[in-house]
């Protein structure tokens, strides 16, 4: 069932856009955050608000891989098996986790805690092999660290992203994606180590972008000298 509060928030999302149908993707994220998956009721509610058919909403929901039509566990665990990560060990990590959790791809453990999925390149190749837990970065994994990670999640321990905040539940994550921020934005670093390696080399060598000639500068941007 879609609660009155959720219905009001769905309306709020649609109202962010010049044309309300633009709200559909974040609205479906909100449905997932309240229902734990895409549900027929959620589809109906979106359709009613956007004044389109339920079939049209369904057509959109089935197109995008983040929308799930089966219940997702508290933790969605993604293992990147696109080429770079696969070669760097993502394939071994994924095989180890399937075995350890006794699930196949896109399946959830019996206790409902973990849904395992192999994912495509998540724009973190310089931290390969990469895993994502509820779409937070878990960088530079090994089969052993991956097993430890899922064991910690199942034991209910607080797990922190290697380059981000304490990990929330999948439903809480979906709520942020729907455009309702939580309070974790200031957790974690600005950048992980690999993001800073070029900057470090530049500093060591005193390399900078050209100095701005004072006549043309506002001092606004550019090299931080």
């Amino acid at each position: 069932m879609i609660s009155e509060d959720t219905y009001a928030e769905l309306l709020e999302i649609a109202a962010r856009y010049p044309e309300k149908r633009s709200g559909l993707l974040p609205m479906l994220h909100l449905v997932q955050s309240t229902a734990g998956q895409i549900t027929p009721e959620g589809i109906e509610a979106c359709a009613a608000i956007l004044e389109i058919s339920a079939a049209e909403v369904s057509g959109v929901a089935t197109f995008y891989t983040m929308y799930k039509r089966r219940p997702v566990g508290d933790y969605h665990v993604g293992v990147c098996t696109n080429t770079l990560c696969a070669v760097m060990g993502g394939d071994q990590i994924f095989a180890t986790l399937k075995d350890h959790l006794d699930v196949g791809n896109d399946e959830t453990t019996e206790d409902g805690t973990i849904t395992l999925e192999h994912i495509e390149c998540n724009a973190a190749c310089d931290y390969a092999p990469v895993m994502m837990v509820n779409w937070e970065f878990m960088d530079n994994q090994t089969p052993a660290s991956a097993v430890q990670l899922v064991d910690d999640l199942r034991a209910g321990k607080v797990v922190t992203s290697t380059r981000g905040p304490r990990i929330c539940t999948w439903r809480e994550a979906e709520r942020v994606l729907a455009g309702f921020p939580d309070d974790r934005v200031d957790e974690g670093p600005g950048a992980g180590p690999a993001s800073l390696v070029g900057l470090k080399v530049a500093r060591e060598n005193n390399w900078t972008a050209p100095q701005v000639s004072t006549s043309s500068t506002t001092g606004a941007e550019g090299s931080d000298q």
Partner: protein
Amino acid sequence: MTDVLTPVLTADWGTPESWKLNVYEAAGGYGALKKALGMAPDDIITAVKDSGLRGRGGAGFPTGMKWSFIPQDASTEAGGKPKYLVVNADESEPGTCKDIPLMMATPHTLVEGVIISSYAIRANTAFIYIRGEVLHVIRRVQAAVSEAYLAGHLGKNIHGSGYDLDVVVHAGAGAYICGEETALLEGLEGRRGQPRLRPPFPAVAGLYASPTVINNVESIASVPSIIGNGAAWFSSMGTEKSKGFGIFSLSGHVNVPGQYEAPLGITLRQLIDLAGGIRTGAGGQQMGLKFWTPGGSSTPILTQAHLDVPLDFEGVGEAGSMLGTRALQIFDETTCVVRAVLRWTEFYKHESCGKCTPCREGTWWLTQTLTRLENGEGSAEDLDLLLDQCDNILGRSFCALGDGATSPITSSIQYFRDEYLAHLEHGGCPFDPMASTAFATVGANQ
């Protein structure tokens, strides 16, 4: 002479709380916005044109020229409509990993760029379309936008200029094709992300059939530095036709993978040197470079022979590939090229939006043929079959995803035909998949 590395966008990534407004402003942030609001919008477009900035999302289209295509004559039908700026933050091309760290570390650089760019094209609404699979990055951009509203950088009558701008942060939901600009617009309109027929081009009829500029994160984030420091400053870096700096992302088998911001035209030899060389093997031996992508998996692979190619749009083009997104995925000799190519092909098959037959059916056939070869079950004729299949996709697909799917295949057959054949002789893959991993070696990815 310009220095080897030129951190501009990455310069403040290491600063504590770099994502916050006060930290950004303490380093001069939003100074370029103040300057821009004192300029005529057309003069900003001219400055961006003069800088030589070309799109950082892959294709390298001149940014200022793209902006000048937006019809501004209010007496015409298109010119009378609202204009929109859409930032492409879908970053999903395999190997590409620059926009995500930028938005995580210094989202205000992007937001400031969005405001200046929107002002230039006279848009009163802008969208930042971020792939959904990067939760913390989305938090940081959401927070930066709300901070900018509170500071009066966004909203009504920005700093008394009379200019209004609203910015909406929009999370995608998992679809590589939504990086293609017209598919992105479909996603942003709440539809399945399938590319649109062009013409009409987005500059005339884009979002809501209104004039729309779509630019990559790094393109837009470069704008404040151009306005702040001047077009001449920007164009003093780079090469004749590829001006300025760009973030080069090294991943894979180098000792120090990561982000290196340099003038366009740097070579892979220089970059690998900065990255501590190709990794050291498990037994302490120095490994050698085997193949690499210059700009993501959709750009034809290159080899040792191309170490000195200038990494600019022209240089990489002349070498038979594309600069793309400067996503340098480095593979050493422990990597099976057939396995690598098969995995990329499976990706394209999975991500094909299904709109056109050559790509939808073709990528399926390609994976079938490649799987046979990787398992050592095919025959030498399968190589010709693959090339024939690629021939039927390249140039016949509705969008560039289909073309991109053929790049790894044709280029790998060009450089590594013998390795394909070795799979047949060996009756399977002759490589040990453990040998290529990060945990198989001592000293790799230290």
